[in-house]
């Protein structure tokens, strides 16, 4: 199917991709509330399947095949359509919203729809016995609508709306089991912490609109080509604030580990397929604002003699690089299986920002896609493990934490389906050839060390983080799947999860294993075979950057030495994990190391999460309370006082008015009445009831009339 033909139909097909899950969410909530219960899943899963079909068959595959056939023009496939939304900005001017499809959108759509669909199918099994089954599926559907809306947006307005829909849904889904106090707290935390970042994003978008007069990507990016550097840099930094919050980068990463309170499919959804990748997607989509025309965009400004140079991509790189290492050290010390994966997600997102920051655009987007698959696989796999262990513990009346890895062990034999898929996810995350993570992570490290904006310090951090990643994943595997079961009776009753859960795992595992292969030509090129260009590189660079005149950097040629080093580090990490957690002498060493004061001191800091929660509390929450205190005082002593003063004045004026009413107006009325009564009192004496008096008065009256007649008309 030719792209030219299909693009004619995009105008109504592309909006359908987010609209279908949105409609399913609304209808699912209504019908779920009407008592249809789990039958609403037909609706939500069906809508998601339809979206997936559109995204794959009608969007992604035509774009991909068209590109592979060499049919794309210079800028790659780029299609966008806008509609007038509402009048603003001047006579005849409208704020326009719309949808777009380019290579980045197509790839994201393919990834998001497929993963959400598989997660929803998985959730059919995972949430089967949950009371709030229909609410869960409706909220997941709404979440998917938010993410898909974000991906197809061609403007920052609908992007922000979709972004906030996801914020809302993360709140709803993390707090899904709202009867748990910890879930409620985690939901609030996720919502409020991301809000801190969203503030900056909103400012960035407002700035972009006020400078360029449009929300549309096209017009903003074209404006940025000729605009002065400072506003562009400020917009970029503002947008990146939103990314820090949504993608859980240091220092706003604290919400993500707590978000594990939600059901495990939600963890996979938020932490792999949708929400956290939205932050990376935002920076990738806004790359022309970050990158400038040919290199790092910088803006200098002097504040009171102090010269500041702002380079957004440098900020992105350092935040990402630091987060990658920082979160990896924490992941090493977590005992909750989902928390390990949570910190791993933070660390891997750090990798993506690092890649974006050093100019490795396609490498970062590549890692975004591969990570989405293998991390969704790992989360769903851990959910399968938790599900099984929880049931077994329930059966055996063991009151232990089913998520704690130290309560597991030896599960490989009991849960083969989960085990094999989980192993693939682990190898992909650890970066073992030929699984997908090896290629994407390798490209990022390569760009960091040898790219156009290479930085050896950041490269070193990335390598150490890669080592730690392999180590904590090995630790997870050895504690969970290998060794001796710690609760033999629970282990006996653990069974593999049903097919509805394991089948999605297997499908995702295929992607997690093979998605790296398009990058193989790059490695082969280093060996002197073929062109030496990763397929991803061309596909992603072409579509997203070229139309805006941004010079896409040529990806750095693969370096076999580096690939070898990375593999060695990964194997070293796995070996260390095996030694410490898989062998008896290693476990002795591990326990002893806690008794040496120096190592204990070094290891306590990450175990306590570096006090980030306390720090954020002191930096954001305490000052907020202080400001609120001042506001309350102002409210009480200024606003309330003014209001009370106005009230008192009103009462005073009213009492004057009342006095006037009582004494002047009422007085006049009363006086009229009193006059009438007094007149009556006087006149009544004429009515003395005596006939003679009346007769006399009649005669007197007659005489008076006669006299009057004589006086007036004269005699005769």
């Amino acid at each position, binding site marked *: 199917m030719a792209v030219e033909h299909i693009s004619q139909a995009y105008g109504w097909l592309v909006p359908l991709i987010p609209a279908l899950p949105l409609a399913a969410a609304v209808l699912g909530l209504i019908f779920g509330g009407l008592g249809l219960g789990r039958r609403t899943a037909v609706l939500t899963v069906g809508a998601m399947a339809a979206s997936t079909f559109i995204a794959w068959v009608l969007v992604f595959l035509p774009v991909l095949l068209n590109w592979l056939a060499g049919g794309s023009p210079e800028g790659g496939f780029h299609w966008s359509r806008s509609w007038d939304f509402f009048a603003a900005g001047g006579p005849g001017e409208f704020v326009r919203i719309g949808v777009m499809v380019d290579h980045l959108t197509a790839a994201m759509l393919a990834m998001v729809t497929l993963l959400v669909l598989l997660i929803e199918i998985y959730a059919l099994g995972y949430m089967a016995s949950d009371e709030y089954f229909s609410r869960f599926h409706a909220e997941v559907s709404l979440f998917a609508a938010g993410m898909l809306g974000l991906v197809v947006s061609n403007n920052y307005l609908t992007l922000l709306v979709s972004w906030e829909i996801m914020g809302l849904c993360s709140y709803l889904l993390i707090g899904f089991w709202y009867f748990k106090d910890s879930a409620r707290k985690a939901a609030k935390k996720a919502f409020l912490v991301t809000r801190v970042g969203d503030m900056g994003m909103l400012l960035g978008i407002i700035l972009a609109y006020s400078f360029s007069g449009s929300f549309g990507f096209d017009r903003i990016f074209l404006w940025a080509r000729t605009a002065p550097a400072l506003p562009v840099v400020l917009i970029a930094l503002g947008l990146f604030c939103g990314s820090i919050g949504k993608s859980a980068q240091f220092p706003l990463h604290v919400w993500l580990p707590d978000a594990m309170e939600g059901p495990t499919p939600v963890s996979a959804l938020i932490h792999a397929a949708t929400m956290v990748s939205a932050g990376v997607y935002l920076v990738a989509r806004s790359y022309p604002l970050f990158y400038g025309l040919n290199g790092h965009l910088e803006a200098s400004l002097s504040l009171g003699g102090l010269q500041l140079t702002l380079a957004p991509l440098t900020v992105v790189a350092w935040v990402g690089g630091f987060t990658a290492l920082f979160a990896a050290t924490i992941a090493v010390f977590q005992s909750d299986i989902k928390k390990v994966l949570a910190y791993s997600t933070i660390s891997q997102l750090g990798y993506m920002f690092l890649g974006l920051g050093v100019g490795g655009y396609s490498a970062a987007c590549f890692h975004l896609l591969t990570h989405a698959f293998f991390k969704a696989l790992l989360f769903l796999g851990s959910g399968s493990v938790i599900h099984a262990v929880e049931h077994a513990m329930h059966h055996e009346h063991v009151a232990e934490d089913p998520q704690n890895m130290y309560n597991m062990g030896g599960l490989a034999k009991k849960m083969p389906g989960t085990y094999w898929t989980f192993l693939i996810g682990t190898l992909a995350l650890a970066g073992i050839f030929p699984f997908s993570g090896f290629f994407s992570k390798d490209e990022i490290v390569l760009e960091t060390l040898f790219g156009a904006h290479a930085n050896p310090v950041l490269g070193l951090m990335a390598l150490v983080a890669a080592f730690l990643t392999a180590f904590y994943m090995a630790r997870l595997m050895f504690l969970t799947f290998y060794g001796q079961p710690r609760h033999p009776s629970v282990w006996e009753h653990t069974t593999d999860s049903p097919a509805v859960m394991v089948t999605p795992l297997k499908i995702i595992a295929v992607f997690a294993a093979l998605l790296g292969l398009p990058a193989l030509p790059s490695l082969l090129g280093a060996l002197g075979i073929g062109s030496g260009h990763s397929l991803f590189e061309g596909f992603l660079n072409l579509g997203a950057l070229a139309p805006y005149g941004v010079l896409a950097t040529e990806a750095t040629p693969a370096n076999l030495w580096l690939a070898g080093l990375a593999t060695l580090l990964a194997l070293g990490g796995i070996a260390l994990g095996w030694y410490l957690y898989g062998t008896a002498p290693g476990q002795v060493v591990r326990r002893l190391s806690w008794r040496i004061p120096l190592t204990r001191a070094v290891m306590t800091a990450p175990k306590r999460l570096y006090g980030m929660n306390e720090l954020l509390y002191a930096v954001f929450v305490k000052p907020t309370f202080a400001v609120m205190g001042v506001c309350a005082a102002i409210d009480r002593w200024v606003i309330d006082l003014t209001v009370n003063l106005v009230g008192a004045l009103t009462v005073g004026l009213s009492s004057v008015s009342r006095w006037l009413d009582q004494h002047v107006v009422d007085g006049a009325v009363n006086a009229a009445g009193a006059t009438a009564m007094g007149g009556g009192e006087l006149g009544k004496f004429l*009515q*003395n*009831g*005596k*006939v*003679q008096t009346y*007769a006399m008065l009649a005669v007197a009256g007659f005489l008076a009339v006669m006299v009057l007649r004589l006086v007036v008309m004269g005699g005769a």
Partner: protein
Amino acid sequence: MPQDLLPYLYLSAVLFAIGLFGVFTRRNAIGVLMSLELLLNAVNLNLVAFSRWSDQGVALERFGGTALAAGGQIFAIMVITVAAAEAAVGLAIVIGIYRTFKHITVDDLDLLRW
């Protein structure tokens, strides 16, 4: 005005004034009725006097010859008849008053007072 008519009119006026005075001042209801008769007779006298005077041909011209020559006198007889009836009704009322109040002093009959 012919001189021979005037004495009758003066007498009539005096009679009327006496009757009026009586009606206003008598405390006894019978006295009031009697004074009323004086009033009626003063009027009768007037009627007869004017009738006689008008028979002399003056008034006939003024009324176009349509009035009867003895119209005033006939009217006086009418008045006497009505007066008789009036006296009967009046006396019946006085008897009614007496039966109710055991007296006929007009001054004390002020039931319609305020």
